[in-house]
């Protein structure tokens, strides 16, 4: 009895020891940065000669301006639309990949290509292809559809954000596909075949059997994509429509202002992004847990 307790204790110690490098990095780098951001947003920055800790004036100034809410709406709009489109395309692609068709091996490599290409390159591609001085517009001008490239309808740098959404979708479809495809391979096709034998039609198989089975992959991948999209900076900065910007760009503008006191407002913006993203992701997870319990998986 004592021995088993002792070995359990040792087991536990060993586990903590293995976890400690990761925990240390998380606690010091991530936790430290988070704590610093929060205290700065509450007015603690003696190195700029500002110390009004704790005061909510920076949050007050930020949340009191109409442009903050416009920026928040834009941030969530781009993130949600691109995640939903990428999810729809990802599910379709994963469903296709579990079937057999000619050239499948090649296709399995090709669809992963965007995963290996950095976002910045994707953004550059969008500028080169879709910009008003881009390939498409120059070709249109060359063939005489328009008299000069600037007359090409604007796709990038508008608040509709098609450029931003295009880059996110292009980059995230393979990621979501990969997650769902992996779950599908793990589950196997037997349940679907059983349902088919029992007389379920295709739509019933998809909605009653396949979708609930791939739910874990759907939730985990969309969670990661959405969190990234809310906090991403480069795409909205380069492809966005200018003021009002998304929140990460707003924060960057505050940080880059010659007026140092605005950096605290920038910190308040960063903390706001974290708060909004955190609340949304926790709610999303809570709903998913309830769904899991409802269908009896735990």
């Amino acid at each position, binding site marked *: 009895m004592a021995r088993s307790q002792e070995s359990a204790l040792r087991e536990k110690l060993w586990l903590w020891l293995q976890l400690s490098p990761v925990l*240390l990095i998380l606690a*010091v780098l991530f936790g430290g940065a988070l704590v610093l951001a929060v205290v700065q947003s509450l007015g603690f920055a003696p*190195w700029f000669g500002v110390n009004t800790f704790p005061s909510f004036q920076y949050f007050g100034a930020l949340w009191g301006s109409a442009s903050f809410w416009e920026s928040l709406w834009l941030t969530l709009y781009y993130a949600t639309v691109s995640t939903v489109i990428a999810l729809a395309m990802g599910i379709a692609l994963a469903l296709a990949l579990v079937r057999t068709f000619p050239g499948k091996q090649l296709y399995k490599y090709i669809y992963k290509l965007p995963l290996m290409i950095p976002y910045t390159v994707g953004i550059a591609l969008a500028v080169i292809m879709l910009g*008003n001085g881009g390939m498409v517009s120059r070709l249109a001008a060359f063939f005489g559809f328009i008299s000069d490239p*600037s007359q090409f309808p604007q796709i990038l740098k508008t608040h509709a954000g098609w450029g931003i959404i295009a880059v996110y979708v292009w980059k995230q479809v393979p990621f979501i596909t990969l997650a769902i495809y992996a779950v599908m391979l793990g589950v196997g096709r037997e349940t679907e075949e059983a349902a088919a034998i029992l007389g379920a039609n295709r739509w019933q198989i998809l909605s009653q059997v396949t979708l609930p089975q791939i739910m874990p992959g759907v939730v985990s991948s969309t969670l990661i994509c959405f969190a990234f999209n809310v906090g991403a900076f480069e795409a909205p900065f380069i492809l966005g429509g*200018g*003021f009002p910007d998304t929140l990460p760009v707003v924060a960057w503008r505050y940080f880059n202002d*010659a*007026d140092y*006191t605005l950096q605290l407002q920038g910190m308040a913006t960063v903390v706001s992004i974290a708060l909004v993203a955190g609340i949304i992701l926790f709610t999303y997870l809570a709903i998913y847990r309830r769904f899991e319990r409802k269908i009896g998986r735990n």
Partner: protein
Amino acid sequence: MRKIALGVSIVAMLATGVAQAQDPAATEFRKGFLAGSLDWSAVAERAKSEGTVNLYYWGGSDPLNVWMDSIVAPAMAELGVTLNPVRITGTKDAVDLVLAELGSGKMVGEGSVDAIWLNGENFSTLKKQDALFGAFAPLLPNAKNIEWDETDPRSLLNLRDFGVLTGGAEVPWSGEQYVCAVNADRVSAEDVPHSFDGLQTYLEANPGKFIYVKPPHYIGNTFVQEAVYAHNPDGTGAAPFQQSLDELGAAELARLIAPGLEYLKNIEPLLLGGDSGTPRYPEDSNALDGLFLNGEVNFNCKFGLYAVATGLSQGTYPEAAQEFVFPEGNMIKNKNYLAIPANAPNPGAALVLADYMSTVEAQISKLEFTGMPAGIDPWLLSDEDAAALAAASPGHTGLQAADLDANIAPDTNATLVDVIEATWLEYIERDSTDSIETIVTRAAENLNQ
């Protein structure tokens, strides 16, 4: 959990331990050099023993980077110093780093920035925060190439940076003038505007064919300042803007800049993308170069005395690009500088670098490689050197150097730049309905906190 706490506390102890150390030798060196009691050979010796110099500068220009790596690095190696060029996306990053390190108690000999290429607000910030090495510039051997004599009006650009007294804490490195280029294929000679009214007339006939870089980028701020000068209600142009904010007062500043900002607000619908409600202001001059090259706009205004020659040789400008005089009498001219921060880790090497950059040969090769005008003053050079410098310049297209010199205006005082910038952002970008006076007063209060 306890283990983590222990690790954190050890890291914290190490950090504070480092911060409390001082480098007495470097402090002594700084004191001695600034007092003039060290001769240059001692500086050169110390530079050799330090062995490296960390130069922080905006790395957005390829020709400049090539020049740094292929010319400056070998020249510094001959002096026994390895050049470590740190290319940053914005000069403010280096300023932030210096201030953060000073804040953590790192003094001379302990920081990480030896020299920064800067001017204007960034210099003003370092000066305000007392983060500069000291009055080193006139003590350099090659300071003889720079006009320090106050009685000569041409010395103004060496003694004042955006109206702020340089006090010898930075050495002139390059000069610039704000010049606009036009695509002559798309705009006939008689349509080229030379005043802001002319620009508006042109845009009414050709909407969307002009845009300027968005403030707070300094290229955009400068365009706004030129508009403000030209619309000065007293007709005194740049003169009142040489005073600091405290001397001028917010109410007076608001009165002086209101007509210029009204003008910029009125032409918004005529700018690129203005028909859709929000003009597509480019974020920086590279983005504007792209719009100009693609024929989306017909004009390109930026700091670039030789921008057309450089742009044509690199293919970043349309082939018909030409310089033109705009706005008449208000083409801002200034210099930019190398400054040494108070906590330079290698003060000796930083001085040697600053001295090398002030040599005639460095200035000539910089001009040849990058089209960046000289920071040294040609009238102080031997005839031979002055001729070589003149021969190195890429030359002008569409006008003469004399035309540019006839339309010079001085820069705006650095303390006003921030307020004018904040007013633009509030009044034009955010479409604030408050009066300009209210906005200026608020911005001035915020900046004076």
